[in-house]
């Protein structure tokens, strides 16, 4: 049994290779991009609209609302990154009902790549929001002693992101594979349905954690005052 779809290699030339992870990722990208293009070709700005447009609007508005609830006051700035994270992981998990499909998120390479993207995006959003000096200064917050701990925290949370998603998806795949060999009929189907749920939960967790990290990075630390603390709405201006 293969633990990762990376091990399924369709073509290789030196360092370059096309494995199942990349192939299914491209497939998902095509599905998402072409599906979005097909639906948004004839968008209606009126009150009557197609059910597919309705579905996409519901999804986009829900993601935007979740980002705002996390604490980011301008959710549309982060919608493309965080929304794509959620949609990619969610669609990758939903497609597990297709026979022969290997979710790319079951590859540690994919989850590590996503975690690395988050790892890079968080300081980029933070620097864009606060400026380089203030962002770097935030690592010494509240004291300089916290600098190594903050750096270690960033690295460890990136690792945790990658391993958490990989472990959940891979373990669900492993459990279904093992159950197929033991109880080949009904129970694997139940586990697959349960896997859909856990896949959605993982997509939610991954994107929400990324949003929280970005929110923490874009939070502007104001100097302490002796008076009453500033209201919560002034966290980000």
């Amino acid at each position, binding site marked *: 049994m293969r*633990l*990762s779809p*990376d091990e399924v290699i369709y073509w290789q030339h030196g*360092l*370059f*290779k096309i*494995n199942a*992870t*990349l192939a299914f*990722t*491209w497939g998902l*990208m095509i599905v*998402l*991009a072409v599906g*979005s*293009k097909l639906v*948004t070709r004839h*968008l*209606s*700005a*009126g*009150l009557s*609209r197609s059910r597919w*447009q309705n579905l*996409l*609007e519901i999804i*986009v*508005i829900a993601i935007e609302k979740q980002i705002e609830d996390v604490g980011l006051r301008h959710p*549309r700035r982060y*919608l*493309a*990154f965080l*929304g*794509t*994270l959620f*949609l*990619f992981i969610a669609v990758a998990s939903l497609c597990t009902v297709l026979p022969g499909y290997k979710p*790319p998120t079951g*590859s*540690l*390479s*994919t989850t*590590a*790549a*996503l975690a*690395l*993207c988050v790892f890079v995006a968080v300081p980029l959003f933070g620097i864009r929001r606060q400026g380089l000096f203030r962002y770097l200064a935030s690592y010494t917050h509240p004291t300089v002693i916290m600098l190594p701990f903050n750096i270690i925290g960033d690295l460890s949370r990136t690792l945790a992101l990658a391993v958490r998603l*990989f472990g959940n998806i891979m373990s669900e795949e492993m459990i279904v594979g093992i159950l197929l060999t033991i109880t080949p009929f009904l129970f694997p189907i139940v586990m697959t349905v349960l896997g859909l749920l856990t896949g959605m939960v993982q997509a939610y967790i991954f994107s929400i954690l990324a949003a929280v990290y970005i929110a923490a990075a874009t939070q502007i630390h104001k100097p302490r005052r002796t008076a009453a603390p500033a209201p919560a709405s002034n966290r980000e201006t």
Partner: protein
Amino acid sequence: MLIDWFTVGAQALNFLILVGLMQRFLYKPILRAIDAREKRVAMVLAEAEMKKAEAIKERDEFNGRNAAFDQQRASLMSRMTGEVASERLRLLDEARQAVDAWSAKRMEAVRNDACQLSQAISRRAQQEVFAIVRKTLGDLAAASLEERMADVFVRQLRALTEKEKEGLKSAFSGAPGPVIVRSAFDLPAAQRAAIEGVAAELMAVATPVRFETAPDLVSGIELIASGQKIAWNIAAYLLSLEKGVGELIEAGGQPEAGSESKAVGLCPEQ
């Protein structure tokens, strides 16, 4: 090895490409459509609010006009009621006056009718009496009534006292015109001569006498000069006859007869 770094790099690149694709094909168009719809809904809501405000304003204006109209109608009704009441009183007064006038006119007409009837009766009685007397006198004295009346008139003129004669003389002496003798019939030549003689005696001068016939004067002879008149007639006799006839009609007991007899007594002078 669970991590293939080439795959990690490729997946990172794939993810960034996917972010770009989704931004282009999903988020931007969907958000643009949502914004356009929200803007349109906001416009519709604003328009609805504006129309609602206008409707409220028009409703208030309508209510105000209604109140003013009701007030105006009430005042007009009150004024019209007063005018109708006064007009009713005026018309009633007019009607009452018209009825009174008509009643008075009717009473006058009845009175005139009664008077004319009374006069007709009187004339008829006079004529009858005159005819009876003339016939009787003619039968008894073989002389006509006219002769007898002229004789009586002449005799009465001669039987006047001296004082009365002086008064007549002084009254007739300044007469500018002739003495007029009026009678209901043509007097015979003998009576005319007798009357001219008496007139000459009374005025002590020869005065021309002109004889006139007046059919209405059925009851005697009149001598007129200088606005003064000496007459003999049977009016006194006829008045007593008329009184007797009236009492006879009243004794009839009928209301109409009673009113007519009363009207006879109120007969205006002709």
